């Protein structure tokens, strides 16, 4: 983080690296194009092609691995007059929050920007593609110099939200901007549409294949001289596949045979692997070979880590030596501390490892996991621990990292950690994971998953402490309190049990207190509730459990309104809002309640436009309110109903009341809430319904709105929401009608106008 002393720059800059807290390390090497290595071939022809279309909004470079896509773009990045923001995609970028962080960091390095503008959470079940794409496009449009955003290895993006976001961006690249995508297969963009508009320049494998002059430079760079006919043969056999040429050159250099006539291994990994095994790898000294195959389990390598994995002592030197001898080991930083293998080479080595020493693979991963954990990098240990087969270790790591990752917005990452346990059928054996997973799914608005995990988590009993020092029973009690399956009294008992059992400093303490307080409120004893809620706020702020603190403040606001103290209620709500904003938690569940309250206090003051704004903000977050956290959801929906009533919007009030009613049918014992709901319904009966407008959008329709704002077809939207195309179409028409429009484009404009889209 730094303060930039130049006019016009924001006074304090937030670094994208700090979004996810101190335990997360932004990998700097992802933000740099691969450095040009000596002897690499300059692809003049292709560079000319790229320079000939400097204004193409989208550039797509497609080819199987080893075709020099990254190298080409790296050369282009050096040449072009554009400023280049580079992101090398990796598996972790399948979390929208992470992908955005890297894009923000990349753009920030081109020109200091307010990275927080790009900070968006993607609650599971709510599409942020349109929002993300728009924010990136706006940022790029606002930059002083023309910018190109390069995304390398986009084939690694399989998360729908991320792919949709890239696709949206491709369709909406601002004038002067450019999106450059390199991928092994078709990029995640609507190519047909882009081609029809003439807005994409495409470079494919045929273009990337090397011709003889280029091949000669490559071969000679590897230290091999060939006669013209031999070179022609080689180019023919490899079909100009650059890495194939290079590896063949290495093989020839160490005395191997030429690939036999008629032996084509242009893209066939298996044949290539066979050739290289016999001609190249077999000539590598045993020790070095073992080192390379064993370290191939690592995505990134440094001396100490390699030492740990191979149980050796001089890995650092070996890495340096390897780097010098060929291009297949890539340095990741200037200090030559970290390296990685060229991906294709790594694949080859992995295959070798599996052939020669399949039985040690798990152990190698386990050693890597241990090293990362011992060196204070628990998250990096997780994938290795999973491959290492030590589920206990994975459980330990996940329970230690999940809450912080969740708080930082990496919801998809957290989801994936838990899904691993599910996929492996391991939830039963790891109750701490089950309980934690249940709670997180509950707050993320995934009720069925929460129930399923809770069922497992509750049955278990295990001795020993959880990462925060609490016994399992305390977490189980907390979970029960959240789920509130058996009524208010039971919720209180569970909350009290959690409160008493949780270790001091536990992240859950504030929530336990909040739920205890709420139980009194729902039992009609607000004076008992308030002090407990106040303590919840205190504790929450103390340990940094900000969502809980904000939720508790909102509850206090409800209490304040109950005694007619509107000024106090407003102050409390504002405090809650400030906490959410500072913590970048605007899109989290407690935000719904806070905004509902602010709507009510604004309406009470007579500021109707403000009230409407807050209700719309709350509407966006409604999909997170489910029966998984019933007391919280119903309370919030009832406050929203009161907010709509204050605006004389009977239709809007009815919609939220209906949804509250649906939850009450599943969880009837919620203290005073059923009575309150009934009372509100009677009030409405005497009200005349003026018109059915935007406030009448149901939560299902609100879930559709962000997807309607993309260019996805109804069928594709149906795939995302697991419904039929017909359903999407019918719901879309309902949305249009309620918005007073009759086309999708008009709908998109309208939702943005009225603030229903972030």
């Amino acid at each position, binding site marked *: 983080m730094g303060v930039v002393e130049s006019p016009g720059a924001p006074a304090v800059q937030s670094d994208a690296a700090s979004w996810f807290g101190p335990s997360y390390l932004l990998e700097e090497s992802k933000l740099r194009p691969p450095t040009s290595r000596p002897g690499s071939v300059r692809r003049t022809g292709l560079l000319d092609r790229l320079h000939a279309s400097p204004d193409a909004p989208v550039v797509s470079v497609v080819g199987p691995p080893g075709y020099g896509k990254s190298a080409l773009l790296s050369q282009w990045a050096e040449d072009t007059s554009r400023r280049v923001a580079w992101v090398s995609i990796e598996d972790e970028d399948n979390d929208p929050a992470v992908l955005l962080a890297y894009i923000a960091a990349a753009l920030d390095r081109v020109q200091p920007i307010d990275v927080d503008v790009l900070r968006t959470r993607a609650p599971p079940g709510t599409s942020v593609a349109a929002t993300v794409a728009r924010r990136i496009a706006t940022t790029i*449009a606002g930059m002083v110099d023309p910018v190109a955003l390069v995304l390398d290895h986009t084939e690694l993006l399989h998360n729908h939200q991320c792919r949709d976001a890239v696709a949206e961006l491709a369709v*909406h690249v601002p004038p002067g901007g450019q999106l450059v995508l390199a991928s092994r297969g078709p990029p995640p963009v609507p190519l047909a549409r882009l081609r029809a508009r003439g807005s994409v320049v495409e470079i494919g494998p045929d273009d990337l294949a090397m011709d003889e002059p280029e091949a000669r430079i490559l071969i000679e760079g590897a230290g091999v001289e060939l006669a013209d006919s031999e070179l022609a043969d080689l180019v023919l056999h490899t079909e100009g596949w650059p890495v194939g040429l290079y590896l063949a050159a290495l093989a020839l250099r160490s005395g191997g045979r030429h690939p036999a006539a008629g032996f084509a291994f242009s893209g066939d990994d298996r044949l290539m692997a066979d050739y290289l095994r016999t001609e190249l790898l077999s000539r590598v000294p045993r020790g070095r070979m073992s080192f390379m195959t064993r370290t191939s389990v690592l995505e990134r390598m440094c001396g100490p880590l390699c030492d740990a994995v191979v149980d050796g002592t001089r890995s650092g030197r070996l890495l340096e030596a390897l780097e010098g001898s060929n291009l297949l080991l890539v340095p990741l930083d200037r200090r030559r501390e970290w390296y990685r293998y060229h991906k294709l080479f790594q694949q080859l080595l992995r295959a070798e490892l599996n052939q020669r020493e399949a039985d040690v693979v798990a152990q190698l991963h386990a050693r890597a996991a241990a090293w990362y954990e011992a060196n204070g990098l628990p998250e990096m240990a997780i994938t290795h621990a999973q491959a290492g087969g030590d589920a206990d270790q994975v459980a330990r790591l996940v329970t230690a990292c999940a809450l912080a990752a969740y708080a930082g917005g990496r919801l998809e990452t957290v989801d994936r950690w838990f899904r691993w346990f599910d996929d492996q059928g391991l939830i039963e054996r790891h109750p701490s994971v089950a309980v934690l997973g249940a709670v997180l799914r509950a707050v993320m608005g995934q009720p069925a998953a929460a129930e399923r995990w809770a069922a497992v988590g509750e049955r278990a009993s295990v001795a020993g402490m959880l990462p925060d020092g609490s016994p399992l029973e305390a977490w189980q009690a907390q979970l029960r309190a959240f789920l509130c399956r058996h009524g208010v009294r039971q919720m209180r008992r569970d909350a009290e049990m959690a409160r008493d059992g949780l270790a001091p400093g536990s992240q859950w303490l504030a929530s336990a207190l909040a739920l205890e307080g709420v139980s009194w409120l729902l039992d009609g004893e607000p004076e008992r509730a308030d002090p407990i809620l106040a303590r919840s706020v205190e504790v929450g702020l103390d340990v940094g459990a900000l969502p809980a603190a904000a939720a508790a403040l909102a509850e206090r606001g409800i209490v304040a309104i109950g005694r007619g103290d509107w000024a106090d209620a407003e102050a409390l709500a504002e405090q809650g809002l400030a906490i959410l904003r500072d913590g970048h938690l605007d899109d989290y569940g407690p935000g719904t309640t806070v905004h509902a309250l602010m709507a009510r206090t604004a309406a009470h003051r007579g500021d109707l436009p403000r009230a409407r704004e807050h209700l719309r903000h709350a509407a966006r977050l409604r999909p997170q309110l489910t029966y998984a956290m019933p007391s919280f959801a119903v309370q919030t929906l009832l406050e929203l109903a009161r907010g709509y009533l204050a605006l004389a919007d009977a239709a809007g009030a009815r919609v939220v009341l209906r949804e509250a009613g649906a939850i009450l049918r599943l969880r009837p014992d919620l203290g005073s809430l059923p009575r309150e709901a009934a009372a509100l319904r009677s009030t409405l009966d005497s009200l005349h319904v003026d018109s059915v407008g935007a406030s009448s959008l149901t939560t299902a329709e609100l879930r559709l709105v962000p997807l309607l704002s993309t260019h996805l077809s109804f069928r594709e939207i149906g795939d995302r929401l697991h419904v039929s195309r017909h359903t999407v179409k019918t719901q879309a028409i309902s949305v249009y009608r309620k918005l007073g429009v009759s086309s999708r484009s008009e709908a998109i404009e309208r939702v943005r106008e009225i603030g229903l889209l972030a």
Partner: protein
Amino acid sequence: MGHDTTGSIDPQGLNERTAALARIAALVAMHAGPSSYQRCVDRALAAGATVDDVIDTLKVVAPTVGLARLVTAAPGLALALGYDIDAALEAVDLPRPDRPGGF
């Protein structure tokens, strides 16, 4: 529908244009499918009816056959006139080059 100025009179006493428009009105009332609309609209236009005439027909019968029938008929009729409503409901306008960001 205006004073009839087109030529031929068919045996039933209606000129072709009027007859065609009347048939279209019936299609609206009868839940007709898109292909029926295509045939009748083509014939109406060939008989000298204008697009305005066809739309006006719709408006005129509304109170009689019921608005619900119009809602059902609209897509098929539109298609017969060359306007794909389904596409319009699903398609997103591409950003115009002159609008920054296209959003």
